């Protein structure tokens, strides 16, 4: 377990943002997330944006219902944040849950 944690602590972790096309909500979410990460969590996360309109099977695979959905798989527990991420404080609280322990 220890090695895992050190591994996690070392590299930047992946945040996946699921959107569907270039809707205002999706664009707002992408913009907000990039801003939060660069201002508050530099280097900790890399952001991957997946357009489900182009690959809908990923919605099935990752059990996505609401759009936009931000998924942080590591560190556990898995967190899912839905919405356009317009409240950066809440986003931060949710992303930092385990790190503050």
């Amino acid at each position, binding site marked *: 377990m220890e090695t895992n944690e050190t591994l996690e602590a070392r590299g930047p972790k992946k945040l996946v943002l*699921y959107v*569907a*096309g270039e*809707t205002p*909500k999706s664009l*707002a*979410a992408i913009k*907000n997330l990039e801003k939060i990460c660069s201002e508050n969590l530099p280097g900790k996360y890399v952001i991957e944006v997946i357009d*489900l*309109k182009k690959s*809908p*099977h990923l*919605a*099935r695979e990752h*059990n*996505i*219902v*609401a*759009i*936009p*959905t931000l998924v942080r798989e590591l560190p556990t*527990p*898995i*967190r*899912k*944040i*839905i*919405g*356009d*991420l*317009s*409240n950066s404080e*809440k*986003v931060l609280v*949710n992303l930092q849950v385990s790190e503050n322990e």
Partner: protein
Amino acid sequence: MTVFEGIGKSRTGIVGFDELTLGGLPTGRPTLVCGTAGCGKTLFASTFLLNGARDMDEPGVFVTFEERPSDIISNVKSLGFDVEQLVDQGKIYLEHISIDPSELEEIGDYDLEGLFLRLELAINQVGAKRIVLDTIESLFSAFTNPAILRAEIRRLFDWLKDKGLTTIITGERGDGSLTRQGLEEYVSDCVILLDHRVQNQISTRRLRIVKYRGTAHGTNEVPFLIDQDGFSVLPISSLGLNHKVSDERISSGVEDLDAMLSGGGFHRGTSILLSGVAGSGKSSLSASFAAAACERGEKAIYFSFEESVDQTVRNMTSIGTDLQKHIDCGLLHYVAARPTFYSLEMHLAVMLREIVRFEPSIVVLDPISAFMGSGEQPEVQSMLLRMVDFLKSRGTTAVFTHLMHSQAGTTETDVGLSSLMDAWILLLNREIGGEFNRELYLLKARGLSHSNQVREFVMSDRGIKLLAPYIGDGRALTGSMRQSEEARARRNEVERRAEVARQAERIKHRRRKALAQIEALQAELDADEIELNKVTDAEDMYLEQSAMDQQEMEKSRRVDG
């Protein structure tokens, strides 16, 4: 099947439901199926979907928000659906959408485009014509923003309608409304309510079409059934009174009874009621109807609500009727079930299904009065009415037995069925002179002239016999009264005959005497005759002599003179 113009219907394949709705659910529109927990919503929806995929070439998508697909597969497997095979053939797709609210945080505006994309993917994958959402209400526990949810659900239904998918949405029954989340306001085309009620500790399932736009539909509650054959809605009757009638006669298995009807036996396809008090021979007579049918090579079903098959077989053997051989060769189907085992509707459904499967020419229900405990009288009556109608429409002869608690009011049955019956045989058990004797009376037989006599009903190891009663002195007697009366009559007859013989002898004797007298008198007469002749002869001779003497005298005087 009538399909109204403008509304296409998609058959559900649910027995009875397609008839009820004149064709099924509205094609390309959403239907809401709501009801309390455990009322069969999911089963209804999955039956609709699986039947469509398997039998009607309409592939479908099952979207489950609650149960796992493996549970659904195993649930319907017991009903004969091989979902795995249909999935492999690409006719069914199971989409499991589960959302764990604990791992979900809502920040800002969102929509359910992901759900739409997943549905679209699934729909395109199988080319779905039907879709089931079971139950979309769980979304309300996953997402906290009801405004977004409602807008999205409305959009979803419109989207499904645009895609032309025949949809079933299930919904849990809420307090004072059809569904907890008011789903009915989004579904305007067809709403079906399922209900599961327990009365007298017997549960009954009922279905009601609350709304069906564009179709004339009954708003009555219709019983339905879930058993090993799946979901079936029971025919509500009434099939009308246009069934065909038959002039063919069938034997009751009791020769003497057949003989009481002019022409011999009852009409085929009629309903015959046997009513009587306990121990009056109802079951034996009804079994004899069934046995007679089997003897003719016809099939018979015996529904017993009081006795087991072994008991009936043994009892009938004691009066010389072997039911076992008919059961063994498959002509007699014996179904025993306690009345309280099912609800009335369930009983009816089970019976109708057995009848449809077995196709008997005669059906025995022994006794119908057993149902009185499991329902209110109007329910029992309506159930039996449906049974009678059903059997009549099939031209099946029906024999019902009914236990009467008293012989006083013999012109009415508890269940008010007497007017439905074509023939009514009354079995009595009457005490006369310190003994009980069974009696049989044909109270009515529509379309048959019949004996008005009360017959003595005698069961022995040689079968059932109906003895003509002793009729004399203006009354009919049975049992030992009949026997003693017959003996007395026999004695009287012997005496009377002896008396007649004596009288005849006396008269003969007198006649002989008279004849003798006649002979004596005749002899006297003859003697007198002879005497008379003698006298006459003497008189003649005298006169002749005197004439001669006169002549002589004259002669001698002339000589002188």
